[in-house]
Each structure stands twice: as C-alpha cells, then as structure tokens.
C-alpha cells in the first residue's frame, strides 16, 4: 500500500487542469496536422498522376519489366486514393498545403512548440495550469518506450554501438573542457561541475544527478538548466533547417541532433520534425547516451576530487550507478528484445492487426502531449535567467560540440547510422 502511495504525489489533483489543457492543445494541433497532411498528399497526387500514367504507358509500349509496371500501378492507385479523400480531380492544386507541410516543415511538432511559446508569452497561462504543464513533458517517456517496437537488436548493436562510441567521446570531451574552462575562469565548482555534466551528457537529468555531488546551489542549477534549455530551444528550431540546407541525410541528422541537443524532449522534437528515420536514429543514440549519466556523475566526482564525500553518501561505485540509472530505458530495451524475437503473437509495427502494429499508432500522441508541455512551459523571462561566464562557456562548448558532431556524422556516413527496424 505504501508502495502505491509513494508512486502518486500527495497533491495529484493540482496536475489535472494543466494536463487537460495539454491534451486539448495536442488534440487540436494533431487534427490540424492531419488535415494539412491530407491536403499536401492530394496536391502531390494531383501533380503526379498524369506523370505516372504517362510513364506506365511508355513502359508498357516498350515491353518493360512487368514488376516495374506493377509497382508504378500500385503508386498510381495510392495517389488516386489520396486525391479521392479530398474529393479532388487531376489538375486541382493545394499548393499552400505543400508549402506549409513540406517546404516549411510546419508539422505537429512545430505547431505545438511555436504555438505553445506564443500562447505562453502573449496571452499567458493561468497559474492553475502550470503544475500540469510541467508533468506533461515527461509523457514523452512512454512514447520512447513504445518506440522500442521499431527496433531490432542488430540496430541497437550497429547504430547504438556507433552512437555509444560517438557520445562517449563527445560527452567526456565536452564535460572535461567545460569543467576545465570554468575552473580557469574561477566559476564556482558547483556551477562548473553541473554545467560540465549538463553540456556533456543529457542536460537536465545530468544536472540534477550531479548537483548533490558538487553541492550546487539552486541558483547554479537554475543557470545551468536555463543554459541547456535555451541552447536546446535555439537548436530545436535552427537544426532542422540547417540540416536541410546542408543536405544531411535523415539518419545522419538523427545522430547529429543526439550529439548537439542535450535535452531528451527537445532532441526527439527536432528529430521528429526532420523525419521518421531521423527520429529512429536519434532515439537509439539517446538511449545509449542517457545510460552514461551514472558514469558522468563518477567522472565529476573524480574531476573535483570529491571521492571521499561520495563514498560516504552513496557507499561506492555500484550504488552511485544504480541510483542514477534512467530506469525507463529498460522498458525500451524490453520492447526491442520482444520485437527482435519476432514472436507471432506480438507481430511487428508493419504487420496489420497485431499488438505491435497497434502500439505503433499510439506513440505519436504521447509525443504530442509532451511537446505541448514543452511549448507551453517555455517562458522567455525564465530563459533570461541564464547568464554570466558559465552561460558563455556552456553555450560555447555546446556549439563547438554541434559543429564537431556534424563533421563526425558526415565522416561516418548514413549506412552505419540507419535503423532497419527488421520485420
């Protein structure tokens, strides 16, 4: 009974209004996204149908491979269905939908984030909604677990292995540089330590995990969290466009974002914005990254020479690792394992009428709720709180990591970073 009670906050009622607001916001935006997507598909269909028909006629006349003709006919059938859904005919155009949905990438992620920021900073959000908005953000976690049905172990070994190596190099390199620079510029150990851990590994979680170790003050935590979130917010909006400009592939973008954006929620948002393959790679590398949190805590202990105090507080290495381990990632790996086993009663994300196929339809709603929470919680006033030398060092290190990360993923190439998803 006490276990159940400990799982529920005493004042759980105060979270309901904000959570309902996020649900309503996510619901409206997902519907707008859906309508935009339908118009964009109809526009594409209207443009493509005459071309595909012409191509089929050409191939048939030349007596080409029947398989190629059949593939084109299937594509034609899909286009006709897309056009029929909007009640249109060939020649009808909805160019505005293509401009918004495809060219400007104005999808549910962008609408929830930009819309949320506009609402929060213009109309404002009543105090009664704030606690619930705060807990909508972690609802991205069940979405990440459910996304486990998209992967198989060979993906984890290939992409996760490359990601683990990449993140390990970048995490410890960044953390060491930031901690060293903070010491050089006489930034207090507390702020330097959490800023190093935060910019190196997984943003807010790492800051929270290392703050008791370096005895960071609440103001230090606010500065470090502010810096990470501010940088992440900027990158969230800039990187998808930068990726398109630099013609970075989806998988490369996923890996690049996982190195550059330090907050899980912001990372998933940026990668989802770029595309499904980008998100698949980003989620897997992020899983590898956040498993390194306990090690960054140990690293901070070593850097600030606090071995004795930690040995006293946590009774050794194993307990430190155990207490800082992100438990939810186990759920993700259990689903990857079940998907890899190819069990007939669970099916797969592409096998219709199976449990994993149904689960594949659910995760986006969790993401939408989480993104609604992020958008509505970004207050420009709060972001101004991040400041001083630590902010410059933290942002400089994060920006350097972003540039070096881009070079690394371009050198690695798409193949090693691509998730296949198996059956």
């Amino acid at each position, binding site marked *: 009974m006490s276990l159940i009670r400990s799982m529920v906050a005493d004042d759980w009622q105060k979270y309901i209004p904000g959570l309902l607001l996020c649900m309503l916001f996510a619901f409206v935006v997902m519907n707008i996204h859906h309508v935009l997507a339908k118009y964009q598909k109809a526009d594409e269909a209207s443009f493509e149908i005459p071309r595909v028909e012409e191509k089929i006629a050409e191939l048939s006349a030349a007596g080409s491979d029947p398989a190629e003709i059949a593939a084109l006919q299937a594509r034609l059938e899909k286009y006709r269905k897309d056009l029929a859904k909007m009640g249109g005919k060939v020649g009808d155009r909805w160019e505005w939908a293509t401009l918004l949905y495809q060219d400007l990438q104005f999808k549910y992620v962008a609408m929830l984030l930009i819309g949320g920021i506009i609402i929060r900073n213009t109309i404002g959000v009543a105090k009664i909604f704030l606690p619930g908005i705060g807990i909508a953000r972690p609802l991205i976690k069940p979405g990440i677990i459910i996304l486990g049905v998209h992967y198989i172990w060979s993906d984890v070994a290939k992409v996760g292995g490359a990601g683990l190596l990449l993140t390990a190099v970048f995490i410890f390199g960044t953390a060491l540089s930031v901690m060293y620079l903070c010491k050089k510029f006489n930034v207090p150990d507390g702020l330097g330590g959490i800023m190093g851990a935060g910019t190196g590994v997984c943003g807010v979680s790492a800051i929270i995990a290392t703050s008791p170790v370096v005895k960071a003050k609440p103001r230090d935590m606010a500065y470090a969290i502010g810096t990470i979130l501010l940088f992440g917010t900027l990158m969230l909006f800039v990187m998808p466009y930068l990726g398109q400009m630099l013609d970075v592939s989806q998988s490369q973008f996923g890996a690049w974002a996982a190195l550059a954006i330090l907050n899980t929620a912001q990372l998933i948002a940026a990668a989802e914005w770029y595309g499904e393959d980008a998100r698949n790679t980003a989620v897997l590398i992020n899983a590898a990254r956040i498993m390194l949190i306990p090690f960054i805590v140990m690293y901070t202990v070593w850097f600030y020479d606090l071995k004795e105090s930690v040995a006293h507080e946590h009774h050794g290495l194993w307990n430190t690792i155990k207490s800082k381990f992100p*438990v939810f990632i186990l759920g993700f790996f259990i689903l990857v394992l079940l998907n890899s086993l190819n069990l007939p009663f669970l099916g797969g994300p592409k096998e219709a009428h199976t449990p994993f196929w149904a689960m594949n339809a659910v995760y986006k709603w969790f993401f939408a709720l989480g993104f609604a929470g992020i958008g509505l919680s970004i207050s420009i006033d709060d972001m101004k709180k991040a400041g001083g030398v630590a902010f410059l060092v933290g942002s400089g290190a994060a920006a350097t990591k972003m540039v070096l990360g881009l070079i690394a993923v371009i050198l690695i190439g798409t193949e090693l970073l691509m998730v296949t998803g198996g059956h």
Partner: protein
Amino acid sequence: MTEQDIKKNESTEKVLQDTSKRVLSSEKREDIWAIIISGVILLLCSINPDAIYTFFKKTLFIF
C-alpha cells in the same frame, strides 16, 4: 562569520540537498510510471489491437 550565519548556511545546505533528492526521486517515479503506462498499452493492444489502432489513427481525428 557568526554562529547564526553558520546555522543559516547549514540549513540552506540541507534544504538544497532535500530538494535535489526530492527532484531525483520524482524523476525515478516518472520513469516507473512511463514503464507502467507502456505496459498497460501493450496489454490493451494485445487484447484488441484493431480497436486501439482505430481509436488512435481514426477516431481521434475528427476532421
């Protein structure tokens, strides 16, 4: 530094550590809830995959 200042600093330190622990434990709680929610979804999807698929892919889109 007076004795009062030392006591004040110590109590601030304690509040700080308590806050960190509370935040960290709430993060663990979030993680466990995430696993429970996913488990429930897996169970519901195993019982009736078509109903769950239709609800999240069709029913929730009203336009």
